[in-house]
């Protein structure tokens, strides 16, 4: 998805726009549409076909209002636009499709694992993977930064689930098919639906075998935690365990790989790479800005459980309500100069990880991975330039880039291996 700088909120004919159209995200300019919606119709009914439609929520305050009130806006009817009009089999089985209080009990042990000792424990694995995926760029030849980033999340997902490294590439590929089944890069010849089903079934089959194996040989990993999880003394059903494995995989494949791509593209095209690369002290605030800028999860869906008035519109019980994170993160009322990538931005109350009870459970490990990635990037590369056409992902769910060919100029440090540069840099950033 392009991160444009729209100028005129009245230039768009909103009635002609279908904000759910995947082509808008690969070939169009969603930020121009969101800007128009925020300013002209921030709580807008979008008709999708004769029978269905949804409310589009585009203001920061309204997005927070919806996400922080799970009683009025339930997650249990489905959480993605693609699911509108059909029941969600994962309802009350999968963390993301479960409301409190059940959600709170399901989330607690997962969160404890992901924010407890896991980040420290997995840091060497993440660091190793970061070096591995960036190594191709050090020779100064064109390399696809998008492909490099796709390989990154397995360091966190694979390690925390206890998945063998031999399976990482296949899982990445299936996850990409499951997320972006509309995109030509991943869609099978037989079409989007077949692609999605095939990916789902392969992944569920994979996790089912992993689950059976883990029952026999439990370990200190997330899959074992899911298997031991009890809610009101009841274990999760096998389907619920698998649905949560799937969720954690997809979750890991969104923010971690996409944020560096959108940030690097912006830094290259505005000629401001060096400005951030030379300022390790701005690493943390820059990562937060990269999160706001890229906002990889475009939307999430809720259903109203009762009538709610919002900015003069009547949302009725049963209505699908879609909140657009990327729009909220460009809200002029919250962010000064929202279309500027500002590594010093403070405060930065972005919603890239969501808000309320469903705030991304992997936020800690995602932040650490992003910090390590940018640290290594800046300490290894002096500059980057584009080396070919950038291709944007065709998906209304993920703001993504499928192809980002770049040439990087490696820093000249006589005698220093890429590993050495990371060690130098870490020494400058005790916060990690």
């Amino acid at each position: 998805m392009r991160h444009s700088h729209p100028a005129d909120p009245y230039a768009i004919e909103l009635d002609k726009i279908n904000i759910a159209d995947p082509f808008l995200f690969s070939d169009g300019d969603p930020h121009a549409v969101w800007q128009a919606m925020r300013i002209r119709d921030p709580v807008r009914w979008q008709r999708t076909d004769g029978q269905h439609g949804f409310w589009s929520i585009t203001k920061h305050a309204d997005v927070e209002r919806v996400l922080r009130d799970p009683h009025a806006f339930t997650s249990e009817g489905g959480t993605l636009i693609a699911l509108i009009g059909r029941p969600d089999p994962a309802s009350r089985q999968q963390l993301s499709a479960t409301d409190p209080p059940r959600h709170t009990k399901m989330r607690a042990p997962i969160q404890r694992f992901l924010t407890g000792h896991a980040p420290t424990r997995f840091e060497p694995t993440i660091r190793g993977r970061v070096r591995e995926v960036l190594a191709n760029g050090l020779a100064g030849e064109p390399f696809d930064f998008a492909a490099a980033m796709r390989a990154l999340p397995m360091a966190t997902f694979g390690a925390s689930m206890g998945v063998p490294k031999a399976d990482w590439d296949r899982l990445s590929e299936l996850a990409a098919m499951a997320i972006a089944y509309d995109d030509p890069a991943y869609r099978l010849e037989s079409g989007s639906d077949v692609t999605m089903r095939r990916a789902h079934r392969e992944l569920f089959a994979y996790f089912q075998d992993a689950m059976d194996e883990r029952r026999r040989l439990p370990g200190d990993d997330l899959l074992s935690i899911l298997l031991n999880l009890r809610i009101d003394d009841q274990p999760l059903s096998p389907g619920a365990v698998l649905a949560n494995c799937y969720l954690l995989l997809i979750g890991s494949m969104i923010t971690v790989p996409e944020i560096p791509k959108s940030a690097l593209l912006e830094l290259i095209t505005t000629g401001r790479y060096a400005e951030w690369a030379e300022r390790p002290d701005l690493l943390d605030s820059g990562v937060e800005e990269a999160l706001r800028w890229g906002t990889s999860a475009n939307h999430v869906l809720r259903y109203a459980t009762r009538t709610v008035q919002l900015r003069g519109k009547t949302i009725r019980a049963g209505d699908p309500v879609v909140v657009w994170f990327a729009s909220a993160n460009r809200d002029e009322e919250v962010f000064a100069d929202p279309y500027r990538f500002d590594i010093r931005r403070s405060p930065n109350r972005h919603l890239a990880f969501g808000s309320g009870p469903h705030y991304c459970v992997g936020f800690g490990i995602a932040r650490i991975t992003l910090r390590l990635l940018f640290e290594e990037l800046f300490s290894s590369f002096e500059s980057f330039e584009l080396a070919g056409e950038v291709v944007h992902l065709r998906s209304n769910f993920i703001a993504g880039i499928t192809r980002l060919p770049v040439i990087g100029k490696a820093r000249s440090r006589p005698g220093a291996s890429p590993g050495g540069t990371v060690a130098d840099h870490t020494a400058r950033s005790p916060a990690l």
Partner: protein
Amino acid sequence: MTAGVDEPAHAGTTLAAAGLPAPPVPVTPQPRRREDCSSTAPFEVPRNPLEETLVELWSAALQVTPLSIHDDFFEMGGHSLMAAELLTEIQQAVGCQIPARTLYLQPTIAEIAVAICDVLNAGQTGEPADCAVADQARGSSGGEP
């Protein structure tokens, strides 16, 4: 707000379609007859006790009767979460571990019976009667996709 052009056309459809209010248990299908499903497979009754057991487990999960041993689990209304439960039940019933890909990627009773026999034979704990018929099935279903 007055009824404007951007007001949703309410007929209770979104509420019903979304399965709201949220059900307290996983979405379970309503009992159906096979004729009401979209199966394109030929009808064939189970040929041995193993396939009979599988038909019973499938019917209970899918809430569809009668079932052909060539029906596709997903065409009959099954979904990935349901498959996970069903596979666990099948494994308990036959007392062996079957590769999950069998149910997810070759989702018919005839094919799973073959897979179960393969596992049982490999472990030398199989029941010869069942597996002999499954061997036949392997031959007869050779032409199926």
